[in-house]
C-alpha cells in the first residue's frame, strides 16, 4: 500500500467510522429518552409541570 492509498484510507475510513458511531449514539439516546419518559402519574403525585 502506498502512502497515498494509506492517506485516503485513513481519512475516509475514520470519517465513516465516526459518522456511523454518531448515528448509533443518536439512536441510543433517542431510545433512552423514550425509556425515561415518565409513566402516567398516580393520583396525588406531583405532575411533571410542577417540577420545572
Amino acid at each position, binding site marked *: 500500500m*502506498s*502512502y*497515498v492509498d*494509506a*492517506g*485516503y484510507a*485513513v*481519512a*475516509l475510513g*475514520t*470519517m465513516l467510522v*465516526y*459518522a456511523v458511531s*454518531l*448515528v448509533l*449514539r*443518536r439512536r441510543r*439516546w*433517542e431510545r*433512552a*429518552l423514550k425509556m*425515561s*419518559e*415518565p409513566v402516567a*402519574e*398516580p393520583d*396525588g*403525585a*406531583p405532575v*411533571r409541570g410542577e*417540577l*420545572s
Partner: protein
Amino acid sequence: MTGQLIVPRRPRWLDVVGVLGIVALGFTVWLGLWITPPDVVQGNLARLLYIHPAIATVALYWAGGVAAGGSLLYLWPRTRSFFWDRLAASAVEVGAVFSALTLVTGSLWGRPVWGVWWTWDARLTSTALLLILEIGYLALRRVPADLDVRAKRCAVAALLVAVDVPIVHFSVDWWNTLHQGGTILDPGFDLHVHGIMLWTMGLSFVAFTLVFVWLLGVRYQVEVLQDAVGDQELEVSLSERWSEDAELVGVGGGPASDGGGDAP
C-alpha cells in the same frame, strides 16, 4: 437552570447535506486518485494534497470558528442560549476528529517528502497542541455539573482553544518552518495550483465542508438528546422523591396529629 426539553426533529436539509457530501467526496476521490495527472516534482504524492489541506481547513477554521463563535454567543448575556453551547461542544468534537486526521494525513505525506514522520516544526506542533486542547475541552465537558455551570466553563475553555487557531495559521509566517507557506495562494494571492488540480482541490474543500456540516448537525442532535435524557431522569427521580415524601407525610402525619402516639 436546566436545558429546554424540546427535542428537535431530524431536519430534512441535513440528510440532503449528507448525501451531497458523500457524492462530492466520491468525486474528489475519483478525480484525486485517477483523473488528475501526477505532479512534476512530487509525483503521485501530490494526490494527498487533495485531502490534507481541506481536512486542515475544516479542523482549523470551520470547527474552530463555530466553537469560538458559539462560546462567545453563549457567554454574551443577550444571546445566551444552550443552542450555542451545544453547537460549540459539537464543533469541538468534530474538530478533534479532523485535527487528528490533519496530523495523520500530513504525516503520511511528510514521511516520503521530508523523510520524517514527525518534526517539531511550528505548524505541526501548534496543530498537535490544538488537538490536545480539544481533547481537554471534551474531558472538561464530561465533568458533572449544572448545565449552566458546565456551559460557562466549556465556553471559556473553547475560547482558550481558539487562541491556538491564529497561531497555527500564522506559524509558517512567524517562524522558519519545514512546512510550506500557502499551499494554494501565497500572501500576494498568486495561485500555485492550476487546471484540473485546482478544480479537484476546490471540490475537496466543498466535499469536506459538507461532511463537516452533516457531522456537526448529527453531533448536535446527540448533544440535545443527552441533555434531554439527563433532564428527564432528574425529573423522574425528583418525582419519585416527592412521591416518597408525600407517602411519609401521609403515614407519619396521623400519629403526629394525635399528639405523637409513638412517643414513650
